[in-house]
């Protein structure tokens, strides 16, 4: 056992460090994000500027094929870059979906001409992509989607509603999965496209979350016309294409941001309970130990994953474990931190609440973390079926024509 980099990894780490020292600013506090320093439009423009420099330095699209500007680097390089970036204020949430999910799908299913047209501007941040997948009636059960695509000569006409689309309000392009044949079985009547977000008939509305932030959008598609040349995969084979996209999500979905054990420990050292500092209280100590053990367990599990990646393995479904544990832990810790503050715990005023209300914010953002990018329940199903090899649930929606399946009450 040994925690050091291989010579190749160390060389890449130095390269990443040199780039960040030259082009990135340190964070002003542990929880500062790009979006908190640079709001909306300014954030996007600055992010694009930074992404161009990243691409020019060869630090974007690390796992992409070299033919499209990538580096064909082992997956461990992505981890090393993320580790080095952690201390810096770098843009997050703008390009990951395009580079990590949309482009790999285009590489797998697009024409050579399309790959050469779209890869370079995506890499440089000139064109931002989003992913039109989930719908109000199709979240965890994505294959239940109902956005209709109807063929019209060498075009398709699309009508429907998508939801939970990150970055749709600034995206230039999108990948889209639709239902082209409602008479076919659920997974067999889907067709996959990409399209310009500037296409007539697209309307985007921000969704306000309980945290007050707006990371997601609703996207309404009304008679949107897409050329058949922008279809990815065969008609009716859209489910297979969507799976390709989602397999790449494992590489993309990052760690949760927000206060973790160290911050809770620091809080327990400073706040006073009825009988002295919180850290002297036996019940508090026991809870802290539980959180520490889970935090470290995820941390060292990640090192085990890195070891596998370092050997050249591809990330597997066992990576769902970290998000499953961390999201629930973040919610639990936030609630516990507020309990320690007692009556003062309710206050979200940043000048009043310790750590500029980081735990109060976590209380309101953590419910979303347990749902976005795979709910706790779906992650458990994935681990059960793909890691433990347990049988799938008995399905009642496999064979019947899609339009005969029962639907939610309206």
């Amino acid at each position, binding site marked *: *056992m040994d925690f050091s980099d291989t010579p190749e990894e160390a060389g890449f780490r130095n390269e990443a460090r040199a780039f960040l020292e030259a082009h990135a600013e340190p964070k002003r506090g542990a929880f500062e994000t790009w979006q908190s320093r640079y709001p909306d439009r300014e954030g996007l423009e600055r992010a694009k500027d930074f992404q161009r420099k990243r691409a020019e330095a060869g630090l974007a699209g690390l796992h992409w094929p070299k033919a499209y500007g990538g580096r064909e680097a082992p997956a461990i390089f992505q981890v090393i870059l993320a580790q080095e970036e952690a201390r810096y204020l770098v843009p997050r949430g703008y390009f990951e979906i395009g580079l990590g999910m949309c482009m790999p799908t285009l590489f797998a299913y697009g024409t050579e001409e399309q790959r050469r047209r779209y890869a370079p501007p995506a890499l440089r941040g000139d064109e931002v992509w989003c992913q039109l997948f989930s719908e109000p009636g199709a979240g965890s059960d994505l294959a239940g989607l109902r956005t209709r695509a109807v063929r019209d000569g060498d075009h398709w006409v699309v009508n429907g509603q998508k939801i939970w689309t990150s970055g749709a309000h600034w995206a230039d392009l999108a990948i889209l999965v639709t239902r082209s044949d409602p008479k076919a079985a659920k997974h067999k009547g889907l067709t996959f496209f990409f399209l310009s977000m500037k296409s007539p008939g697209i309307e985007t509305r921000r969704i306000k979350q309980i945290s007050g932030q707006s990371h997601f959008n609703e996207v309404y598609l009304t008679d949107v016309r897409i050329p058949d040349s922008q279809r990815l995969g065969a008609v009716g084979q859209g489910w297979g294409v969507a799976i390709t996209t989602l397999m790449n999500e494992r590489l993309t979905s990052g760690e949760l941001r927000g206060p973790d054990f160290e911050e809770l420990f620091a809080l327990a050292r400073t706040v006073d309970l009825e009988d002295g500092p919180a850290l002297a209280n*036996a019940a508090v100590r026991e809870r802290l130990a539980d959180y520490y053990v889970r935090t470290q*367990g995820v941390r060292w599990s990640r090192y085990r994953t890195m070891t596998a990646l370092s050997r050249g393995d591809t990330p597997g479904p066992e990576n769902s474990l970290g998000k499953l544990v961390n999201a629930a832990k973040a919610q639990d810790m936030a609630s516990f931190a507020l309990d320690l503050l007692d009556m003062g715990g309710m206050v979200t005023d940043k000048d009043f609440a310790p750590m500029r209300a980081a735990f109060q914010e976590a209380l309101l953002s953590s419910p979303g973390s347990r749902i976005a990018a795979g709910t706790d329940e779906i992650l458990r199903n994935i681990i*059960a079926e793909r890691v433990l090899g*347990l049988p799938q649930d008995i399905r009642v929606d496999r064979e019947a024509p899609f339009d005969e399946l029962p639907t939610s009450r309206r």
Partner: protein
Amino acid sequence: MNFDFSADQKALRDQARKFLAEHASSVRVRRILDTDEPYDRELWRGVAEMGWTGTAVPETYGGAGFGYLELCVIAEELGRSVAPIPFSSTVYLAAEALLLAGSEAQKRKWLPRIASGEAIGCLALAEGAGAPAPRAVKTRVTAGRVSGTKAPVADGDVADVAVVAARADGGDLSLFLADLSGPGVARTTLSTVDPTRSHARLAFDGVAAEPLGAAGAGAALLERLLDRAAVLVAFEQVGGAQAALDMAREYAIGRFAFGRPIASFQAIKHKLVDMYVGVELARSNAYHAAWALSTDAAELPVAAATARVSATEAYFHAAKENIQTHGGMGFTWEFDCHLHYRRAKLTGLGLGSARRWKDLLITRLEARAG
């Protein structure tokens, strides 16, 4: 980055697993469960012949001179098979105490006999119910003679040598080494929640005892000793937890109810995933502690406490939910589920409760934070 065991260490694991599948099958474990035999003598001889008892003992003292990573690998397999032998008391506690604090003469006398499997060792610490804090130790040593009662002592009924925590002439806690073949030792077998591992009450009445380490260093030595043992026992617990998860998985796939395998119900799937998550976190924490133990890193006290808490909780959780997954058969004597349920609780108490280790963990984090 290489946070994994080496190919050689994995080969050792495969060899250990194969050996134990044959020589520590549940039929063999049950022979100890169902009789008054304190441990499986044949298995103990086999384990000694494989050289496992001397894994981390230097070659100068008759050991194999491997490192602690090799011992961790073997511990995991012993835990998986619920091996009914005095391995942890002899190897993780007695041998380690000698290596930590023994004089050259003490090491020369006992380590070769331990490495060869000829001698069984034990740690005589607890004196009844409640936490064995230094102030709770009443056993005394006067003029080289130990008097007092220790219970429970793992393998105290069969051990040849004991590491005894006691006070010399009313001073601070110290460690002593007592040859149990001498006069004045009264051993009474104690029944425990896990009959596959024998425990005893040891009553010392003026038994000859030599100091082990400096006078008054007992509390500090015990802390270091228990940290090291905690890492090794964590591997046994991880092995046992994995075995309990594997049993539950096999049963759930093969057991049909309501016209389908019960493993297809989410109530069962999610239960098994929660067991898996606990085992994986415990395994990762144990790996880190193994690294700290094998490199004598400054992180060892925190890493050992983390591994101890993580593995204790993961094993008990996996063992109890394994019974639950088996339904009615799960709580019969006939099915093997209870072997893990018993061993999980026993290993969770043997080096001190998770409650106490959690408190210790926070104390160490406070010290680290300054």
